[in-house]
C-alpha cells in the first residue's frame, strides 16, 4: 500500500441491509476506480474484527444496529463519487430477473406428468434412452407410445411386464402409428370414428388398413400399435393382450382386427385361446406366404361387418416395360414385406427383384425417416431410372399426420419422363392434411399408375414386368 491512500469510515444509523446484500455492495465498491479497499457492513463483532484486520479504525460505540461504510482511497480516488455509488448500491432495487424463469419446461417425463397428470406419453428420444422415459410414464400411470427404435428387446419385455396387470399399455417400441380416442399419434391417417378396433404390430400395415377401411366407408376410433416384436417368443404378446382386452371391453367396438407378422409358434396358440375367450370377434390379418394380403384381409373385415366391398381405386396409366428387373423402393416396412411375399409367390427369381425399405434401421442412422426426408429414396430412384435393366418401379407414398407435407412435390418431378413404368401406392384418406386427391393427381400427371391397395399395386407391377418377358 502506498502512503498516498486515505481512509474514510462513517457510521450510519437507521439503515439495515442483510449481510449478503452488503457483501455485494462491498464488492461493487471495491471495483470502483480509485478504491484501494472497501467494506460496507453492519457493525457486528465479526464484521468489526474483519474491518480492523483490514486496518480500518472503527469507532468504539458502533453496534450491530449501525452500518459501517469503510473506504480506502488511492491518491486519485474521489470520495464523493464513491459515496454516491454506495448510496445507489444500497437503495437500488434489483430489476426483473433475467435468469432462469419460474416456468422452465420439464426435463423428464415424470416432471411433465407431475404438471399434466394422466396425459398419454409419446416417446421418440434415441433408443438407448427410450425405456427410461417410457418407464416414467408407466410409473405415473400413463399409457406410452414408444416411437423410438433400437430399444433392446429385454427392455421392451421389462416395460411390458410392468404395464401388464396395471391396466397400462406400452405401444412399441418402434411403433409408428396409433389412433387413440380419435387422435392420431406418430404417422397416422385421419379417419372418422367407427366400429372397428385395430391392434397392429406394424405401423404402415395399420395405415394401409385404415386407408382401405376409410375408402370402404368404415371408421376407426382406436388403433393400438404394439411394436413389431410384440408377438415374438421373447415378448409373448404382452401388449397385444392388453390392447385386445381394451377393445373387447369397449361397447363401441364391433369387430377387432390384429395386424401382424405371423406370431411365434408358442405365442400363436396362447393368442388363439385368448381371442377365443373374448366377446368381440377378432379377425387376424397375419402377413406372410400363403396368407391373405392386407387388402384381402380388409375385404374380409368389411364382409364381416356386413358392408359392401368397394372397388379399390386405380388412377393413371403407365408405360410398358422394357427392362426385366423389378425395383421396389418403399418407405413403409410392411408395404415392402407384403410386396416381397407377392413377388416371391409370383415366381420372380431373386436376382430380378430388388425391394428396399428405406425406413429400415440401416437407412435411418443419422437421418430422418423417409416419410419425412425423401432424399435417399429419390437418389436411388434416379439410379434405377437410368438403369437399362429396370423393368418396373414399385413405390409407396404414405400420407397422414407426421409425414412429409407434400410428398408428391418432390416425387412427381423425379418420375416425370423417366423410362421405366412406375406404379405407386398412395396410403392415405381424403381427410389427411396432404390431400389424397391432390397427391394422386400430381403423381398421375407425372406418368405413374396410382393405387390405394399395395397388394394390387404389386400385382400390377408384376403384370407389367411379365409383359416384358
Amino acid at each position, binding site marked *: 500500500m502506498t502512503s498516498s491512500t486515505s481512509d474514510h469510515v462513517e457510521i450510519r444509523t437507521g439503515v439495515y441491509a442483510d449481510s449478503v446484500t452488503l457483501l455485494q455492495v462491498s464488492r461493487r465498491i471495491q471495483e470502483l476506480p480509485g478504491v484501494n479497499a472497501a467494506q460496507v457492513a453492519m457493525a457486528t463483532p465479526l464484521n468489526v474484527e474483519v474491518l480492523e484486520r483490514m486496518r480500518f479504525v472503527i469507532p468504539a460505540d458502533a453496534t450491530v444496529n449501525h452500518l459501517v461504510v469503510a473506504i480506502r482511497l488511492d491518491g486519485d480516488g474521489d470520495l464523493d463519487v464513491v459515496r454516491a455509488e454506495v448510496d445507489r448500491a444500497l437503495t437500488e432495487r434489483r430489476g426483473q430477473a433475467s435468469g432462469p424463469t419460474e416456468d422452465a419446461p420439464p426435463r423428464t417425463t415424470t416432471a*411433465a406428468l407431475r404438471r399434466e397428470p394422466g396425459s*398419454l406419453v409419446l416417446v421418440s428420444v434415441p433408443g438407448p434412452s427410450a425405456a427410461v422415459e417410457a418407464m416414467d410414464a408407466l410409473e405415473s400411470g400413463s399409457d406410452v407410445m414408444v416411437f423410438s427404435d433400437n430399444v433392446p428387446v429385454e427392455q421392451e419385455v421389462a416395460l411390458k411386464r410392468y404395464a401388464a396387470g396395471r391396466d397400462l399399455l406400452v405401444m412399441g417400441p418402434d411403433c409408428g402409428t396409433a389412433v*387413440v380416442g380419435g387422435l392420431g399419434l406418430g404417422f397416422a391417417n385421419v379417419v372418422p370414428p367407427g366400429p372397428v378396433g385395430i391392434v397392429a404390430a406394424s405401423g404402415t400395415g395399420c395405415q394401409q388398413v385404415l386407408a382401405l377401411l376409410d375408402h370402404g366407408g368404415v371408421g376407426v376410433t382406436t388403433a393400438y400399435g404394439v411394436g413389431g416384436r410384440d408377438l415374438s417368443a421373447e415378448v409373448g404378446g404382452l401388449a397385444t393382450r392388453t390392447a385386445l382386452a381394451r377393445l373387447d371391453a369397449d361397447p363401441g367396438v364391433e369387430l377387432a382386427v390384429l395386424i401382424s407378422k405371423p406370431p411365434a409358434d408358442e405365442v400363436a396358440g396362447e393368442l388363439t385361446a385368448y381371442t377365443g375367450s373374448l366377446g368381440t370377434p377378432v379377425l387376424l390379418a397375419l402377413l406372410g406366404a400363403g396368407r391373405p394380403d392386407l387388402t384381402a384381409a380388409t375385404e374380409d373385415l368389411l364382409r364381416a361387418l356386413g358392408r359392401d366391398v368397394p372397388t379399390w381405386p386405380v388412377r393413371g396409366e403407365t408405360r410398358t416395360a422394357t427392362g426385366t428387373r423389378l425395383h421396389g423402393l418403399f418407405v413403409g416396412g410392411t408395404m415392402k414385406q407384403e410386396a416381397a411375399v407377392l413377388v416371391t409367390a409370383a415366381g420372380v427369381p431373386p436376382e430380378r427383384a430388388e425391394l428396399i425399405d428405406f425406413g429400415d434401421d440401416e437407412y435411418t442412422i443419422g437421418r430422418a425417416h423417409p416419410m419425412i426426408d425423401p432424399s435417399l429414396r429419390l437418389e436411388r430412384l434416379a439410379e434405377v431410372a437410368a438403369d437399362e435393366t429396370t423393368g418396373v418401379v414399385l413405390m409407396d407414398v404414405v400420407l397422414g399426420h407426421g409425414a412429409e407435407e407434400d410428398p408428391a412435390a418432390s416425387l412427381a418431378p423425379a418420375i416425370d419422363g423417366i423410362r421405366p413404368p412406375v406404379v405407386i401406392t398412395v396410403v392415405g384418406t381424403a381427410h389427411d392434411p396432404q390431400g389424397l386427391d391432390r397427391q394422386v393427381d400430381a403423381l398421375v400427371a407425372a406418368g405413374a399408375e396410382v393405387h390405394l391397395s399395395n397388394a394390387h399395386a404389386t400385382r400390377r407391377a408384376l403384370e407389367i414386368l411379365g409383359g416384358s418377358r
Partner: protein
Amino acid sequence: MTSPASEHVADRVVSVGADLLAQAVEDQAAPVSRVDWRPPLPGTEDDLATVALDPLRPDANAQALARMLAVQAVLVDVLPAHEAIGLERGEFLHAGPPITWEDASGPLRGALMGGAVLEGLVDTPEEAVALLEGGLHVRLEPCHHRRAVGPMAGVVTPSMWMFVLEDPATGARTHCTLNEGLGKVLRYGAYSPEVLTRLHWMNDVLGPLLQRAVRASEPVDVTAILGQMLQMGDEAHNRNRAGTLMFLRDLGPALVESGGDISDVAEALRFVGGNDHFFLNLAMPACKLALDAARDVPGSTMVVAMSRNGTDFGIQVSGAGDEWFTGPAQVADGLYLGDFGPEDANPDIGDSAITETAGLGGFAMATAPAIVRFVGGSVPDALATTRRMQEITLGENPRWSVPVLEFAGVPSGIDVTKVCRTGILPQINTGMAGRVAGVGQVGAGLVNPPEEIFPQALTRLAELTRARAR
C-alpha cells in the same frame, strides 16, 4: 380388470423427443406438453435403462421416501460425545467421507489440531501436527459412521457436548455438537486461544446447562420447528435465525430454572441468541435422522447422504449400502468477507449438505428471500432453484412447505437416476472456510457436488440390479 378403450381418450399428450411428433398432435388441436429432453450424462444410457427397469426400484424409492418423511426428530438430551456415542480418547470424528491426515485440507487439519489441544492430548496446536502425522494414538472417522453429523470440518472429540435427537416411533438417534458461532471457530479450522477458550466454556458451562434444561422441559420437536422456520424465511442451512429464536423460546424458561449460576444462564442465552446459526446443529441431525431411516432399501436410488471433508465430496445411496461415491470437492461460488477472495477459500467442506439431502438449504431456497442473492441475485431465481430441484427428487415433504410456492412441500429424496438423466446437480448453500489452517471463515456461497459421483453411484446400482436379476 382392463378398462375399455373408450376410457382412454388422449385429451392431453406429453411428448418427449422429436418435435415433429408433438407438432403432429398439436395440428389435431390436442394440447401437448413438451419435455425439454437432453442426452443424459455421457456413458450412462445403459446403466440408466437397467436401473429404470429394475422391478424393485419404484416400490423401493417409494418406501425410502416414505420412511424419511415419517421421521420425527425430537431433542431428548445433551451429552458429551464420549457418553452420547462412546467416543474414546484419541478418536476424532470429522465431516465427509473417510480421509487421512495426509489428504486432509487446511481447515480440517486446523480443527483436528485444535481438537487435540482441547482433549489435552497435546499442549499446543503445533505439537498436534506431530501427533496426527504419526497417527499411532489417534483415529479419524467420519461423523456419518457414528450416527452423527458435523458442520464444516465437523471435528468431534470425546469431551464435546452433543445434541441427542431421537425418533420416538423407532428410538433411532442421531447427534451433533453445539454450534460455536461465526468467524474464528474450530469448525472453520481456527484453533487460536479464543477458539479453545470458547470450546472450554461450551464444555464446562453451556453443555451442562442445556442438558439440565432439555431434561427438565418438554422434548423440543425439531422437525416441527423446521416446518415453522421455513415459513419464517429460514432455509435451515445458511439461515437459521428464526429456528434459533424458536429454540430459545422453547428452552428459555427451563434454562432460567435450571439452577445454574444466573450469570452463566445469561451468558448462555446471550451466546445462543447472538448466534444465528445455533439451530443449524439441530437441523442437521434432524435431517440425518430422517435420511438414516431411508438407508438400505434394496433397489432404491435415493441419496441418503451428501457430505464433504474439504478434499472429497461423497454421497451414499439407499440401495448401495454404506459405500461412498466420491470426487473432488469444489470451491463455492459466492461472496467473501473483507478482502478475502477465491484464492483464500478451501474446497467445499462439511456434513451440512445433509440439509439439502433432506430438501432444505439450497433445495428450499424459494422460502428464504433474505439470502436469495447467493443464488445469483433475485427472488425469481430462488423460486427457479427450488423448482429445478423438483426435477431431481422423488417427491415433496408435506411437513416442510414453501408458502410462496403455494405451500408446495420442499423437493425431497434426491434420485441418482434423475441427476444423471438431467445433468441437474443438487444446489447446496454453504459457508466457505479459509484454505489455510487457523484462518476460519472467509465467505459463503453456492456449490454443487462434482458431477462424476452420480454416474459412479449409478454404475454400482446397475451392478446390483444385474446381480439380482441373475
